[in-house]
């Protein structure tokens, strides 16, 4: 039995054989009541932030302060059903999405919500990105068009190139922390910024830079979105995506970028750590719900700022061509991640 499930069974006095049900309900709770509202809120904040940056009016049409805008967009997309949808497409757009959402159980959102922790937890973002990349390549190839074919091939290229620097960055933090489980990666950090991995070891600035940019490349995010170009002429897989399929695709991409930022927070920015005395007090008084919201709030606030920072950065950059992306990885990100790896270990060895 994982610790989070144990806490909740203990809290609600449930029978000990209800582990599966509690885990299932927790996954549903995390996705429906934490991640989706965060996504909605994030969408509004992000669009408002970008609109202020670009000197224009942001969304304020649906709901109070535009908070219903993302929901309205999703409903609009879901209503549009493709004229002809084959079985394989249905598999691609629903099953891939559902499997990816399964990684919610292993997200480092807090002591009360981490349902799965193993010695390979730190590699979950890479696995999820490979999953998305494989699905996106299949989507591109299934379109039977030149732009879809090119988009699929570009995704494959970007995934292969972007994977290596991200892997080295994770290895760096893992080597410093003595393991790749969330417990090992987060427990040696604290609530205060001075106790975060990024501040404790200055060489990790190289690693966090490589990790975030590699994430953008792996997920074909802003700047590196040539595989997803909307127009046929650019060659990309989203040219033929519309309606429900586009809705699924966007939700998946948002979730994966959220996952990547949460993992960055866990690896470098203190994760879900709150002040020790507060956590001890809440655990002793069995105030699990307050503890859960405090930890999740900490992660979400850090994630929000990180996502906004990256969004602002990407909005003033021009799109990179596919060959520019690969050049950037081999000439900048790989050396950066190696410098981060070697420098961080030497720095720690020197201090020791």
């Amino acid at each position, binding site marked *: 039995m994982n610790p989070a499930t144990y806490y909740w069974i203990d809290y609600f006095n449930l029978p000990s054989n209800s582990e599966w049900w509690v885990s299932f309900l927790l996954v549903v709770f995390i996705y429906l009541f934490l991640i989706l509202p965060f996504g909605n809120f994030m969408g509004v904040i992000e669009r408002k932030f970008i609109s202020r*940056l*670009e*000197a*224009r009016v942001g969304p304020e049409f649906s709901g109070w302060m535009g908070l219903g805008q993302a929901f309205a967009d999703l409903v609009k997309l879901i209503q549009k059903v493709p004229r002809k949808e084959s079985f394989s497409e249905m598999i691609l757009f629903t099953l891939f999405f559902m499997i990816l959402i399964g990684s919610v159980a292993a997200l480092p959102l807090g002591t009360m919500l981490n349902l799965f922790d193993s010695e390979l937890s730190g590699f979950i973002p890479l696995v999820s990105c490979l999953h998305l990349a494989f699905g996106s390549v299949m989507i591109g190839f299934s379109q039977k068009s*030149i732009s879809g074919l*090119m988009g699929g091939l570009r995704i494959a290229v970007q995934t292969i190139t972007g994977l290596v620097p991200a892997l080295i960055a994770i290895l760096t933090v893992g080597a410093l922390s003595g393991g790749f489980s969330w417990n090992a990666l987060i427990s040696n950090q604290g609530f205060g910024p001075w106790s975060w991995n990024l501040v404790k070891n200055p060489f990790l600035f190289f690693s966090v830079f490589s990790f975030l940019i590699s994430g953008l490349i792996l997920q074909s995010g*802003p*700047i590196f*979105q*040539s595989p997803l*170009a*909307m*127009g*046929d*002429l*650019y*060659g990309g897989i989203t*040219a033929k995506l519309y309606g429900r399929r586009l809705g699924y695709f966007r939700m998946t991409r948002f979730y994966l970028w959220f996952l990547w930022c949460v993992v960055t927070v866990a690896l470098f920015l203190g994760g879900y750590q709150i002040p020790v005395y507060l956590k001890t007090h809440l655990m002793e008084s069995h105030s699990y719900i307050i503890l859960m919201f405090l930890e999740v709030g900490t992660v979400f606030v850090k994630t929000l700022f990180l996502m906004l920072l990256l969004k602002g950065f990407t*909005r*003033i*950059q*021009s*799109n*990179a*061509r*596919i*060959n*520019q992306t690969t050049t950037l990885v081999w000439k900048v990100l790989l050396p950066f991640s190696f410098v981060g790896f070697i420098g961080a270990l030497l720095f720690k060895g020197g201090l020791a």
Partner: protein
Amino acid sequence: MIKDKKEGVLYSDYYDWNMGPYQSNMPVPLQLHIRSDGEIIHSVRYNRGYAYRGTEYLFEIFRWQQSIVLGSQIIPEAPLFSEWALCLAVERLFKIELSPKVECIRGILLELSRISYHLKTLSQFCFTMGIETVFHFMMRERELILNLFELMSGHRFGKAFFQFGGVLDDLSAGVIDRADKVCDRLLSRFKEYEGLSIENRTFTHRLEKMGLLTDALIHRYQITGPNAKAGGFSEDLRFIQPQGPYQLLASELCELKISGYYQSNPLTRFKYRIEEMRQSIRMIRVFLEELPQYSYLDQTIVSENLLPEGEQWVSVESPQGHMDVHLVSEGGKKFSRVFYHMPAVASLAAYPHLLKQSYVEDCNVIFYSLGVEMSEVDR
């Protein structure tokens, strides 16, 4: 090409794409036949004429006094230039001279219109490159100019403000101060655009190694305007044969020239357009200084019934290059023939050559770097 011996079928290594004429990512109606070798373009052919409106033919149908409105349809984004060329031709036909005040007003409007056109071209280019922030900034500054036009003429693009033999009306109160402030603001913003684009390594690295407009291509297609001037061809009609308002600048023309451009690639074309906007602002400032000296405003000649018999060929420097208008009159109430020669046609003709050996992703980038407006090509 590979030949299958068993079936006798020809296979090709190339992809053949047919794009357009109405494609979501091509705002212009243009049909492209692209043959690419993977990501690299092998050859391109294009078909145009999908936005043909027969405007030049309409000149022969309407009375000559009404044709100024047709003139503004030739360059919808900068209608004052096509109006000015038509006005010049008619005024030469009538053999009339305009007062300096009219010329000053025309000069201010023309150069503001040039800036507006360049801002629109560059914003489209930045949008295609993915820097949406610069796109929004440029559109914001363009609004200032359009608001100024609205204040002067009641129309956001200043359409039909130029009349044969003069302008529609005197400038509204406060326009001079406001235009001066707009110029100040634009000058400070240009630095911001450059900071966000030219100083960006990804941006410059992508643009400087593609879409090269060679000297041979410029000569072959008679390309003019910023596309040629960015490659070192400094033939600007405002300087080599000043006419209309530009005669007032004769003493300051040498200081206004732009130099230091030798290779026309998308990056230099981008830089040149920003530099030309700065040049336009310097011209506007001269016109604004000279304007208060003059008080007499000409009466327009639209009360004349019949056109004099004759033929005129007028060349002006439009934002896209040398724009010519050929006008024939047989002495009636209508023009016998009006023909516009547009510089965008030459730039479009060179477009397939620029695409060879470039990446598929760069098709639209190269297109917008040339600043071609299909409404000018298909008239």
